[in-house]
């Protein structure tokens, strides 16, 4: 009964003189059902569309950043490193050693940008999340959509990174392409818990620069990126062990140049990264529901 009435009303609105020529909107029930299934995708679409306005910046950065790093470190610094050391990097040249680490780190760097300020923007500055929240889309779907869109960015950026690596001849193994899913996983393992944290920040007191300085930069530098973790004293080696970048990098080295690790250690890397993603997701979901529900 009610169903019929609402449907007729919506249809009548669609046929009204003010919107002549357009197809009528579908009934509320249809909307609700679609959003229940696809809501997260709708929100992801929104984020990706917004990204279009700076897509060239992303592409150029995704090509320029690896080119600059690989050239400076892999070629320039390598002249010092390769000359002064023999077999310090498991028998491969310095560029082959650092390339997978740089690719994985780049995803984490992107995560540290995309899961901080835009989240503050969503809840506080421009209140971007409150627009979709007034539609049938749920807070969980907004969080999931945000994550999905950034995962797409990780993928695009990692593919471009891989292409640059190939140009530098830094991908000896045919399995190097697996670096792309590894980078996505690593990016999310850092990004999703960060999303949960960013969603809990109510007032900008400079927390995000602190995250960069006290978490992202140390992780980037002390995760076996530029030198094997064993070169560090035990006092700081633990930073690598809890770092998603180290776990991702170790996996990445396995696929990009056949770096040998025991199977149990590979499993540890994977489980560590997955636990961070799943745990982060539960926290993020809770924060989004609580914050948008207020």
């Amino acid at each position, binding site marked *: 009964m009610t169903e019929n009435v609402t449907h007729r009303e919506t249809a009548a609105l669609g046929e009204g003189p003010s919107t002549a020529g357009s197809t009528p909107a579908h009934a509320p029930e249809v909307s609700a059902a679609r959003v229940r299934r696809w809501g997260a995708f709708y929100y992801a679409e929104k984020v990706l569309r917004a990204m279009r*306005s*700076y897509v060239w*910046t992303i592409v*150029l*950065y995704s090509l*320029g*950043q690896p080119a*600059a*790093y690989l*050239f*400076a*470190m892999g*070629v*320039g*610094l390598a*002249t*010092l*490193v390769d000359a*002064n*050391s023999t077999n*310090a990097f498991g028998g491969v040249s310095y560029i082959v050693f650092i390339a997978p680490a740089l690719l994985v780190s780049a995803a984490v760097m992107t995560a540290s940008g995309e899961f901080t300020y835009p989240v503050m923007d969503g809840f506080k500055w421009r209140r971007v999340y409150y627009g979709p929240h007034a539609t049938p889309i749920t807070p969980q779907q907004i969080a999931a959509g945000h994550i999905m869109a950034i995962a797409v960015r990780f993928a695009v950026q990692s593919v471009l990174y891989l292409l640059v690596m190939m140009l530098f001849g830094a991908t000896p193994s045919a399995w190097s392409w697996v670096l792309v899913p590894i980078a996505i996983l690593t990016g999310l393992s850092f990004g999703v818990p960060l999303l949960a944290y960013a969603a809990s920040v109510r007032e900008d*007191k*400079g927390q995000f*620069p*602190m995250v960069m*300085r*006290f978490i992202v*930069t*140390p992780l980037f*530098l*002390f995760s076996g990126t*530029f*030198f094997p973790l064993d*070169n*560090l*004293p035990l006092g*700081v080696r633990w930073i690598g062990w809890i770092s998603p970048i180290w776990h991702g990098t170790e996996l990445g080295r396995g696929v990009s140049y056949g770096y040998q690790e025991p199977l149990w250690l590979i499993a540890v890397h994977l489980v560590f990264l997955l636990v961070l993603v799943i745990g982060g997701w539960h926290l993020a979901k809770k924060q989004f529901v609580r914050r948008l529900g207020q």
Partner: protein
Amino acid sequence: MSVQDSRTLLTTDGGPHPTEQVRRRKYGPLYSRNARAVVARGLMATKSSNWTVMASGFLEPVLFLVAMGVGLGSVVGSVQGPGGQEISYSAYIAPALLAVSAMNGAVYDSTWNVFFKMNFAKLYQGMLYTSLGPLDVAIGEIFLALLRGLLYATGFTAVMGMMGLITSPWALLMVPASVLIAFGFASFGMGITSFLKTFQQMDWVNFVMLPMFLFSATFYPLSVYPEPVQWLIQAMPLWHGVELLRQLSVGSFGPIMLVHVGYYVVMIGLGLMLTTGRLRSLFLK
């Protein structure tokens, strides 16, 4: 001709009232000799913000120094220093990292910070509705950036000392030299920021900064490049800063130092001209 003041107020000691003094003062069209008000505002804002964010700013180069110096230093061993003597890899990169941090701090303060205040907080619009001129604002903001740069440089130099990387008393000159480097970048950065309108354009600043950071003989000597590339890098400001600090760090002086310092003096002069011209056309259009 002149307007009579119907309510000229006198202070208790008989002098003209402060607001009256202000109205009678002579000002220049761009500069009212009151940049200290802008500085005072900046210090007050820092005080009420999260000062640990600011204080921790010098941490990044320290982390780079520890990671690269210790982690990679064991692989690299010793390298040839500016005077031709062998020095440790840590001692080699430390002054370069200081130069980079002077650049980064100055560029951040004069680009992102200024961009935000100009386009979002509308801070400068408010300031320029007072008797402040654009040059007061520029000088005040640059002074603040340099003050912060001075703090960071002092902190980093102290860390170098604690790590045993300072072997010459001349190394203390790295602190004022870092401020010079910061001055060069800050005076230019503000002028460039005035051209930028969107966050995407702001990203282009990084496009220039990243290669400069990586290629300016920061982590390895310039000699690894072919000659034309070397010339290109020597034309860039950061290389002059890196070389200047590296030479000071071991107390190795030479006429080339005058070139480095001269480069920054010219950069500061041109940057200030650009910034003032831009502020005039932006805010007094």
